[in-house]
């Protein structure tokens, strides 16, 4: 099969790394060749962060280039808007509608663009925007946004419950397992 590309974007500290690790692990158990690319270091300090998850028969490049993403999973609204150039025509965007102001907006040097969901929908992209933060908070913690989004993404895979749960168990600390499973379910059934 042709290599499939999922980009996970968000703000440093939101838990994008865990999401990509969970997904990478699951895809490997399904027998795919997998590459997951992360960014560490300075950009994690509240900056814009990107991870790439690629899978298929043989994956070469660890990164996803412009025009190649089948799906962008965005943890924050502005970050979804930042990476539209990376999405394939007709590709999918799953977007947490939460807004986190970047420093230029906080400092008053720039404005947070308005009506972004609407603008994203005007592109040749399937947009699924929803409030993942509220669902995470209902599940027990604002930090579970990543599992809510994972649940939403799961709708587009035909993996079994067992397979997802196994991947979650291997990716989160036992102490938070139940809460994370709840968040995953909330995302999937919302």
């Amino acid at each position: 099969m042709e290599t499939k590309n999922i980009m996970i974007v968000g703000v440093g500290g939101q838990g994008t790394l865990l999401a990509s690790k969970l997904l990478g692990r699951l895809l490997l158990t399904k027998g795919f060749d997998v590459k997951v690319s992360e960014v560490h270091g300075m950009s994690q300090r509240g900056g814009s962060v990107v991870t790439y998850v690629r899978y298929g028969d043989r994956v070469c490049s660890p990164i996803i280039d412009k025009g190649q993403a089948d799906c962008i999973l965005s943890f924050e609204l502005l970050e979804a808007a930042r990476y539209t150039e990376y999405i394939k025509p007709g590709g999918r965007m799953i977007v947490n509608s939460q807004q986190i102001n970047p420093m230029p907006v906080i400092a008053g040097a720039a404005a947070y663009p308005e009506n972004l969901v609407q603008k994203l929908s005007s592109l040749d992209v399937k947009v699924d925007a929803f409030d993942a933060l509220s669902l995470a908070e209902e599940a027990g913690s604002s930090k579970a946004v990543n599992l809510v989004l994972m649940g939403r993404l799961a709708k587009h895979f035909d993996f079994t419950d067992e397979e997802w749960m196994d991947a979650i168990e291997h990716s989160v600390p036992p102490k938070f397992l139940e809460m994370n499973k709840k968040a995953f379910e909330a995302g999937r059934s919302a």
Partner: protein
Amino acid sequence: MKTLMLGNEAVARGLYEAGCSFVSSYPGTPSTEITECVAKYDEVYAEWAPNEKVALEAAFGASVRGKRSFCAMKHVGLNVAADPLFTISYTGVNAGLIIGVADDAGMHSSQNEQDSRHYAQAAKIPMLEPSDSAEALAFAKLAYGLSEKFDTAVLIKMCTRVSHSQSVVETAERVVPEQRKYEKNPAKYIMMPAYAKKKHPVVEERTRALAAWAEKTEINRIEQGQDTSVGIITSSTCYQYVKEAFGDTYPVLKLGMIWPMPETKIKDFAASVDRLVVVEELDSFIETHCRNLGLAVTGKELFTEIGELSQNVVKEKLGGSVQTGALLGEEIPARPPVMCAGCPHRSLFYVLKKLNLTVLGDIGCYTLGAVAPLNAIDTTVCMGASVSGLHGFIKAGDEESAGRTVAVIGDSTFIHSGVTGLINIAYNESNSTVIILDNSITGMTGHQQNPTTGYNLKGDPCTKIDLESLCHAVGIRRVRVVDPYDMEACQSAIQEELSVKEPSVIISRRPCALLKYVKHAGPICSDPEKCKGCKACMNIGCPAISMVDGKAVIDETLCVGCGVCEQLCKFGALGAEGGR
């Protein structure tokens, strides 16, 4: 077993499987996880050294004593370790010695974009360059064999995309070779002129022997293609970009060993294609070598020396077409990294800015003090340069500028190479004021222990260097400690130390707000009734504070209650109880 591993984790696994028993490193993005991962194996002794020079010398010592050893660093760390590197080239090794170095094309987290491959050529040490995690594991094992066979240290060059990408590896059992005997051998290990003169020809002969090995090894392989109008020589992550862009269309010479290069193989490959192209990131290294062989080659005229390449770049530059996605047609504000909410550095920088001081900065999270709205740093060069630079700055200036200039340096960076600069300040008597930002951890690279934290790499309690005593011991009489959350105390301490006519050190001490053991007060509350919208609280650049409808609003999910904004508000609108 097949498993997904980061390139760095795969190097660690390769070291483990090859029986590596001693690891000494200094953290640096993107190399850090190699050492963190190898430390998880109980059979391997692993440590954080104060800096890369110490790490390499320690690893060399372990090799001489007969154990397979390793040290890791980022590209700029190799500059620090360059001194032992060039002479270890002459001594050779006893048990195998590998040096891992990770470049950062694109400068995701670095102060320059230097190309470490030049070190291999300059120091005459072989360099392997893996292109994914499976190769990272395999090359680490292979490198020990090479090291012992050719009596040389071996460099493994990583880059951000190989270090920080997970791909599939297959693991094997650990096999530990018997410890080699140490035997006194002055002609081998004492590099004074009489012995070194005899060693230099040995080094040159070794490079020739390694070049002959490079001709035969499978890690320098030709992959046939259907279309010989173009032939591509490449390595590292660029190999993956080439395969992604063109599959098996063009023949590829994939170099796993980047120094020394297989001259005959390169010439034969060039002869088999119409046009020879080199795809490499950063400098012209393979390309220059091809030119030296008298070959016509295309490289940097297509592929820039600046930043990273990608599959689209490779495809476009070689005549292919790529389709990018739709742009939103909207100005998207940038999201630069910022100091975290509750970061103890923030308030200290605010005070420096308020006092309008010239600030010589250093390498760490606190480099973010350079950006708006704090804009509180004047220079940042390399590890330790704040302290040594301050000495020169003060000596070249007048008394007035001495009263307006400070250096800021983190605890780990100070131990790495700030302390030597401080010795110079004391010894050569400059009226310098150095501020050590002691957040009790190596922050930027992701919370590594260091000699001032009281814990070692394995997490066990250990000797803790007392910074106050250290500063006293090198000859600084005025040493004081302040809490950066208390801005008034910081300001008076800085003003007082700047006014005295002798060197001084201020230790700004509070643990990193992200450390797990740090207990936070609840979030600050804001009172919209009392807030006059003066924006004084916005001057510290805290990500938890924003203005909504002209009033300060606190993001309770981010705020850790450090209380710095509270000290800035003249109207009592911010506080633990706020106005509620």
